[in-house]
């Protein structure tokens, strides 16, 4: 591409401007995505994801899950007989099935005559696209969780199990519900349980935090802290509307994988008249979008266009010790349907 193109240097400057906008608390509010559910899943992910770079064309990533379910008991053997299967990570290959893109255009004249320069316009575009893509990914994460939920093995507790849902009456959503959750985790063999919730427990947790200084509040606070909790007030309730849902999950039950086809630094393809690069997500650490830049003659002006694409997948740990127990349970506030 010739002079007049949006070069690597321009893109760098645009990203630096985007960084500076991100530091401004007032501006950041406009571009910060609600992706708490994704951040929670990332925090609780312990699978090793490797992007495939060999000859295999039909798969994109290898995910190495920790599998402890190959262990079974046997009758006793003599002292010197000590031959057991190796405990190893279970590898499974996946094709990434989630892909979404977003973009924007800027006319050359607009960038030239506007009070703010082209790089600043592009900076804002990058921030906006990052927000849109990341929020889409968050919605996908909740949708995938819904497909992963298993069956609660505890059928005689305060919750009523109906299919993959466990209905817990509204009045039971008190600090003592954590005793039930602990029991559910144990009976479903969740070795390292955590909660990922919509608004269900949010106010309860908020109040417990502030009441902990009181004599009566210490117990409630301790109960709520007995299990790790993550909240996503926007996505979980939106996807599950009208149900108010809390997921009880086992650490490592979910893995997310991303793949980029573009190299990081901008590379021009003069024949195709485009530049390929990568752009880091603002909201999801370690996630990059494949970025494409083009410019074309449009009427009496030059139109510059940027496209950002995220490719990835969200997977459920296949090594659950019991069929149907996927490490994810769906707790719903309210009475079971009659």
């Amino acid at each position, binding site marked *: 591409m010739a002079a007049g193109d949006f070069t690597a240097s321009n893109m760098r400057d645009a990203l630096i401007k985007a960084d*500076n906008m*991100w*530091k401004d608390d007032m501006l950041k509010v406009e571009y910060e995505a609600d992706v708490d559910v994704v951040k929670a899943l990332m925090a609780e992910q312990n699978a090793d994801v490797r*992007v495939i770079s060999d000859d295999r064309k039909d798969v994109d990533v290898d995910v190495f899950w920790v599998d402890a379910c190959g262990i079974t008991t046997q009758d006793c053997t003599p002292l010197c007989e000590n031959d057991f299967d190796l405990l190893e990570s279970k590898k499974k290959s996946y094709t990434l099935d989630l892909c979404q893109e977003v973009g924007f255009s800027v006319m050359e004249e607009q960038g030239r005559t506007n009070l703010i320069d082209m790089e600043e316009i592009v900076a804002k575009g990058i921030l906006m696209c990052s927000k849109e893509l990341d929020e889409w990914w968050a919605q996908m994460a909740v949708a995938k969780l819904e497909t992963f939920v298993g069956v609660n093995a505890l059928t005689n507790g305060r919750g009523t199990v109906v299919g993959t849902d466990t209905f817990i009456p509204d009045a039971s959503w008190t600090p003592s519900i954590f005793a039930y959750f602990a029991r559910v985790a144990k009976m479903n063999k969740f070795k390292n349980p955590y909660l990922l919730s919509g608004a269900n427990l949010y106010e309860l947790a908020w109040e417990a935090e502030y009441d902990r200084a009181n004599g009566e509040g210490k117990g409630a606070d301790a109960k709520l802290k007995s299990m790790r909790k993550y909240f996503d007030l926007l996505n979980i309730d939106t996807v599950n509307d009208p149900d108010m849902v809390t997921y009880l999950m086992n650490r490592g039950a979910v893995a997310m994988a*991303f793949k980029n086809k573009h190299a990081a*630094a901008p590379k021009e393809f003069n024949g195709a008249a485009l530049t390929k690069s990568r752009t880091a997500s603002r909201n999801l650490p*370690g996630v*990059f979008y494949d970025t494409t830049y083009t410019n074309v003659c449009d009427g009496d002006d030059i139109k510059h266009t940027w496209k950002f694409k995220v490719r990835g997948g969200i997977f459920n740990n296949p090594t659950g010790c019991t069929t149907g127990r996927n490490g994810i349970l769906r707790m719903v506030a309210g009475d079971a349907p009659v």
Partner: protein
Amino acid sequence: MKELLIAFLSKTLNLDTESVAELLYKKSDEGKLTEEVNPEALAGLLAKDAERVAAIKPNTKEFFDNGFKKAQKEISEEWEAKLRENFGITNVEAKGDKLIKLAKTAAAADTPLEADKVKVHPLYLSLEAEAAQKLADKEKEFNDKLAEREAAQIREKLISTNKERGRKLLASLNPILPQKQEIADNQINDFLTKLEGFDYEGEGDDPIIVKDGKRLENEHGHPVRLSQKVKELAGANFEFAVQTEKGNAGNGGDGSAGKTGNGVKVPATEEEYNDLFFSASTMEERESITSAWAAKNGAE
């Protein structure tokens, strides 16, 4: 009768009888008393009587004066004694005006002043106002000094806190430091003194920089924060090591499961700078790389 008269006159005039007879009767030419009454007898007798009276009557003025003085002295001594007794004056030598002065002094000490009258006296009011003003001035001076001292303490604490933040931020940028620890520490401490010239505003770990009462702003009018200022200053004072891309279990980027960041490299070329910059997954990494690149170009 003649003898009786002469005897009486002799007694009363305190003259002998012959002198009396001479006054009464004429004398003959021989100088002998006759029986003829002296026509001047009455005058002579009156004169003699006057003489007699004068001899008896003292100098009344002197007498009066002496008596007055005596009386005055007695009265004075009497009053002086009373004064001494009433006012407790033991000095017996004090008399007259001196004694009066002592009595006045004693009386002034004993006599209680009527408070209400004192309080409306102009001198009292003036002194009272003056004392109140002095007290108010002193109180203001004290409060001003206290406020000044408190503000200085708060500022000192803020600066100390933000210098520590600056130290951590600088460390995160991976500046290339001298091998010798003491020299490295001195270099860092010298750098951190640059942060003492600012004030800091806002809650959180990344406050806004204030200089001369105004917040610093970038070219967009956005406030400059501590992290940005440290990076800006660090870029002008250090060269930087660069960390390679950090790995993430959820992202395979370019085929690796995740590299750990342990590189010590400043981009040698712009191409290398771009590779590192666009591979950085966080704002902080991009800034670190850019600072290193800027420092390298600034040093050349």
